[in-house]
């Protein structure tokens, strides 16, 4: 008993201080390691794995017959396939999913899992796209769904783009013909693919666009521009206009902030120009990340040299969003400077977005400097473009009017 008396006296209680009671005689190192280490590792690994798992184990009841086979892919050895729609060119073994989360190799064939399953179907003003030089003041019928081939930390539509179709709480069942029928029924002149990246639901876009063109509707899409030239050229056959996000002008920015590449985007821009489709460019200016005046100037000069001075360029104000929340919004002066740089570089149509009421939210005639389209945010207050010409001086204004 005496021995025991001595023992218990060595042990003191917990709290932060308790931990310090293991000095005398100590606990066996093995015991401690075994109990503590295993427990913590178990929990840690378990949680870590969970965080990386998709929301559900498998795509919902996969029925090959109901799925649309993907376009632009090739079959490789041992049942593997390679998707050729975007620059990533995912190589997928059987059962594997593409980077954009929307395509799957089922039995050696590639299928699009989101075809006819939009998660957002909505009517917006065309200015929201933005497409400022295309039927101003008209409405567009927009489609978007899950998935994206980029991982932008500032994504505005992350609820859609950074998820797989199984993780969506709801989607609509809307085959292409019915999608087009909605636009016809509501007399909406233009169909648009936006919100998430159209490249990631290419086959649905393509099928709708074909029908829409047959029915005489206009087709527009808003993209990050990382599609491969071949599928892009095929889609452009049924497209009137494209709005491209040129997110920055350095490879480093694309890599660090969007986990993507700049070169494919530049290639896309050239392809659209070559195919003679109407093109507008959006540049979201994020303070400290892509707002270096030299880079902005280089971008503007590149646009002028490669795409021409008629391509409208929209500088958008950034507000903290998605994961990028510990950062200031873009100073308006910064946007004004960018606007100045672009104008000095020779671009004719430069606007500032996300600053309602700003003078350069409107479009000015490059010849007489008069305001030809007066906008506040997405609303057209006055349109002084008649028959594609400035109503004041008759200067031809590029666009689809």
């Amino acid at each position, binding site marked *: 008993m005496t021995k025991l008396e001595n023992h*218990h006296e060595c042990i003191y209680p*917990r709290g932060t201080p308790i931990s*310090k009671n*293991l000095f005398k005689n100590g606990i066996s190192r093995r015991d401690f390691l075994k109990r503590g280490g295993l427990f913590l590792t178990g929990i840690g690994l378990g949680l870590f794995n*969970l965080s990386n798992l998709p929301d559900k184990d498998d795509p919902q009841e996969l029925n090959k017959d109901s799925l649309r086979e993907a376009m632009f892919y090739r079959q490789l050895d041992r049942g593997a396939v390679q998707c050729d729609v975007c620059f990533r060119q995912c190589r997928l073994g059987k059962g594997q999913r593409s980077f954009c989360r929307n395509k799957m190799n089922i039995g050696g064939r590639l299928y699009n899992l989101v075809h006819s399953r939009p998660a957002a179907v909505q009517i917006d003003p065309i200015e929201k796209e933005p497409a400022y030089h295309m039927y101003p003041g008209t409405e567009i019928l927009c489609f978007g769904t899950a998935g994206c081939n980029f991982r932008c930390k500032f994504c505005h539509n992350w609820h859609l783009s*950074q998820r797989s179709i199984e993780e969506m709480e709801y989607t609509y069942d809307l085959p292409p013909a019915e999608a087009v029928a909605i636009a016809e029924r509501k007399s909406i002149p233009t169909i648009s693919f936006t919100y998430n990246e159209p490249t990631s639901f290419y086959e649905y876009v393509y099928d709708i666009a074909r029908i829409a063109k047959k029915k005489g509707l206009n087709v527009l899409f808003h993209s990050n521009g990382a599609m491969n030239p071949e599928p892009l050229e095929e889609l452009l056959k049924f497209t009137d206009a494209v709005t491209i996000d040129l997110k920055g002008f350095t490879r480093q920015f694309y890599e660090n902030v969007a986990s993507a590449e700049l070169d494919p985007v530049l290639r896309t821009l050239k392809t659209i120009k070559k195919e003679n489709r109407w093109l507008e460019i959006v540049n979201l200016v994020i303070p400290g990340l892509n707002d270096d005046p030299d880079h902005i100037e280089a971008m503007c000069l590149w646009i002028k040299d490669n795409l021409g001075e008629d391509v409208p360029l929209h500088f958008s104000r950034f507000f903290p969003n998605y994961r990028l929340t510990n950062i200031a919004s873009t100073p308006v002066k910064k946007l004004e400077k960018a606007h100045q740089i672009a104008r000095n570089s020779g671009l004719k149509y430069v606007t500032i977005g996300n600053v309602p009421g700003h003078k350069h939210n409107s479009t000015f005639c490059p010849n007489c400097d008069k305001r030809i389209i007066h906008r506040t945010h997405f609303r057209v207050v006055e349109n002084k473009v008649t028959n594609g010409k400035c109503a004041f001086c008759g200067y031809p204004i590029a666009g689809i009017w």
Partner: protein
Amino acid sequence: MKERITPAVMVMGASGIVAQILLLRELLIVFQGNELSIGVILANWLILEACGAFFFGRIIDRRKSKVEFFVIVQIAFCVCFTAAVYFSRNIKAIIGIAQAEALGLFSMIAASLLILFSVSIAHGALFTFCCKLYDTVGKESRHASSIGRVYILEAIGTLIGGVLLTYVLIPRFNSIKIALAITGLNLIVCILLLGRFWLSRQRSTKIVGSACLLLLLLAGAIVLTGFDQNLNEASVANQWPGQHVLHYENSIHGNVAVTAREGQYTFFSDGVPIITTPTPNTEFVEEFIHLPMLSHPEPMEILIISGGAGGIITEVLRHSVKKIDYVELDPLILKLVKRYSTALTDNEFRSPELQIHYQDGRYFVAHTDNKYDLIFIGFSYPRDLQVNRLYTKEFFIICSDRLKTEGLLVLNLPGSLTYLSRELSDLNRCIINTLQEVYPYTRKIPGDVNLYLASRSGSILSAGHSDLTERYNKRKLDTRLLTPDHIMYKLHPRWLERFIRSVERGTDRINRDFQPAAVYYSLAYWNALFAPGLRRIFTFLEGVNLWMVLMVFTGLTLLLLGVGAKFKSVTTPIPLCVATTGFAGMLFDLVLIFAFQILYGYVFHWIGIIISAIMAGTALGGHIATITLKRTRNHLRIFMNIELAVAAFTIILPIILTQTNLAENRPLVFLPLALFSGILVGLEFPLANHIYLSNKPSSGLSHTAGLFYGADLIGGWLAGIAGGIFLLPLFGLLGACIVLCMLKLSTLVALVWALLRSR
């Protein structure tokens, strides 16, 4: 020599609490002020300090030059602490995340482990060393009582450290300077401990002593030349690359920083931008102010809680109101907006209608006699407990009393015109439910930011597009975005129909002060950004209720009894009791911290006091138990009484905390509660060891201590992680305590069962 160790022990205690609290506060700022991360930080500190005590504690036995070795660890502690303060502000860059990016749950755990790692390990080792030293030099005293004295001295040091830090150091000095001061103090103690080291025959003593002196001089030089200020500014500036940081200050509520770039000021609260001048988010301010103002036929008296400066007041003033009262949750924000003014804010502050109240927003609303036509809550969502104080049923009731009969309460939440995810539906629905508990009429205006107008009057909310347009024209509003066309667009029924369909899928819960369901949904929303894979855990847990927990515990207890039947020893369930008490200890910490924040909103200021009181209580409890052991024989009975007392305290604590009169600023009540909960938890450990060893002498001390220590640690760690993130937000204070009570009772039942079997 012994007299020299006494201050060393006290300084060690004080240094420990200062390091713990200072780093906790720095990390809390990096974690966007989310109090739920406190559990994670405390749990990590606990486990790391244990590692230090355990692994390094054994090394000193093998050392001949114990004092020298102690001094070396002391130096390591000081250097690591100062470095940790510096690097805590740049931890994102260290773990490979952009400064502009927010942190997810896993990054938070990793970041806190990394920052605390060397500091808490070194401090853990120090305590063990102190005891050894005390033991070695104090030969005249018996071993155990020497440890007891170290314990008490350290506890006194902890208390003094906690109070000094909270009331003297933090209000006056920046964190780097405080770390350097602690470094200086520790080095002086080291030098004292070494005595006249330059005369020593031992080379190691001379080297260590000289190092101390050199470092002391260096620390002194840094402070005297003001270089610490440069270090502080550099570590702050790194957080906003490309921005000019004009101001960085901690208030009692949290951190406020002001940055400038291209003529724009941005005001950050705990790293989150809240006010931008001179051009705010026009879309937000115009929609947020004019849609509600136009819904009211004659808005005259307005109250704005948070976010008013820099646009919102300007918009309100367009309606020619009589009076605007403006409060912030953190008055420091107001002072800084005034100091770094622009034409926009100058005009706002100069307007005669505006009256600014430098008070905690919730306290002001609870105590004002004014009645308002409109009350605006300017936050974007109840992202943490502090902000949640403005979104609860209790607060909505207070607001209801401050509104005129036709008055409107206005708030906004994140939304989406394209797609409403489950997290957004739940968050919005939870607040809608809460509003509907208090107000018979609510109007929802969906958008990428959802607007909510709540009133006791139905007529006020029936105003349609034409009424709003008529008022718009009558008041001759000069707006940029919000024109009659835009009003029509916003009020189009298609948005509302879709929105209603989406939120119908949401939760039925309501948000209350002590049951902050909205914080849980905000957490789930925030988690969806970073770890979508964990979404199903959040969804699953949301479905769990107290009955299910009761069933699980009953099942587990029965299982335990079944297993226990095979063992005819009373000792079997004791490690389990210790684990659940470890769990209880940490949960009590969190309950007290969270309750303080819910009631007063300035736990950032008081956390040092609460934690040091708990720690001192634990030490005291341990000491009392050790003394009791010698005097009484029926240890098992005492043990069971303590178990019962802990179980009872789980119910008494929330009852005390939810007393309405506590809402009046009475923080001192928390002191005895913290102390008592510490004592209660501290009592159990020595008893458990003793009983276990008495009944099972074969197990050996080393095994027993390891077992209990591990059990206690796992309990505490689990409570820190799970308690802070799931238990408290989901079940609320009372619910979490009930779960705890069930847990304690189930182990108690097992203990009684084992006792009966053994007889």
